[in-house]
């Protein structure tokens, strides 16, 4: 699967897919549809959405540390404009922004 090649680099702007589907999903609901940047590329890991159901977790999925500005995630975030939120997100949940 071509998605496993690691298509994003540190600094790339990304948006979290706003999908809603059942299953063992490791992308928190609150961050879906929000935009941030790739902070770090962690490498490839077995896919938990497959592992959770006793399958082999293959193909492995690239995992990224994605940064978000708190003020852009929450409407009523306390006035501290530099505060950030970092989340580990698998590539198939990200799209270029």
């Amino acid at each position, binding site marked *: 699967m071509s998605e496993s090649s690691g298509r994003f680099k540190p600094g790339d702007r990304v948006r979290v897919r706003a999908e809603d589907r059942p299953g063992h999903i490791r992308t928190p609901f609150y961050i879906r549809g929000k935009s941030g940047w790739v902070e770090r590329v962690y490498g490839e890991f077995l896919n938990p959405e497959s592992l959770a159901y006793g399958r082999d977790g293959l193909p492995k999925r690239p*995992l990224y540390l994605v940064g978000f500005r708190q003020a852009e995630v929450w409407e009523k975030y306390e006035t501290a404009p530099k*505060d950030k*939120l970092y989340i580990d997100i698998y590539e198939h949940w990200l799209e270029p922004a």
Partner: protein
Amino acid sequence: MSVDPSAKQNETTQEHGHPHPKHELSYHAKRIYAIRELLLEKGVVTREDIQAQIDYQEARSPANGARLVARAWVDPKFKARLLADPKAACAEMGIDATSLNEFVVLENSEKVRHMVVCTLCSCYPRPILGRPPDWYKSFNYRARAVNDPRGVMREFGQELGADIEVRVHDSTADIRYLVLPLRPPGTEGMSGEELAKLVTRDSMIGVVDALPALPGSRKNA
């Protein structure tokens, strides 16, 4: 097999000579005992295996993390290795972190504080910090750590100025995070062992800083 673990439990409590308060086992506790008995009966595990696993679980505690942090405070080369390759640095200190898929250490500074949460469940660096406290697994912490981290810190007794950047890590996947807190002022000259006492579990989750220097422990004060 014994399908009435509660009866067995009560029987056991009488054996060592003094009474224990009787309490009903919950549905889940009964189920666990039933599964345990089945596994033993079918020879999947032995009683020794179970005890060894209990001992292993109990041996892991925040003392491991405190040793890592205290050494990083006094040994800049170790700190560099801890940040660059945390699992290797753990091995150096005799701490077995091999069960962690990936382990990342987040260094606090005067300008930046890190705080760790798992909003989806209770992901936590167990080999380094032991089992997570109940509050770490509570819905309240999991929800508010991401949208009101400064409010959470305030409840732990720490007020941060707006000039300090708060970075919350939502540990959602294969990475486990440990916060390397700032070395408290006034601790110059303290030994690694003394310093480790200032490194609390909560300071390594990042909801507060490490404890201030203990009174009377300052050598040059």
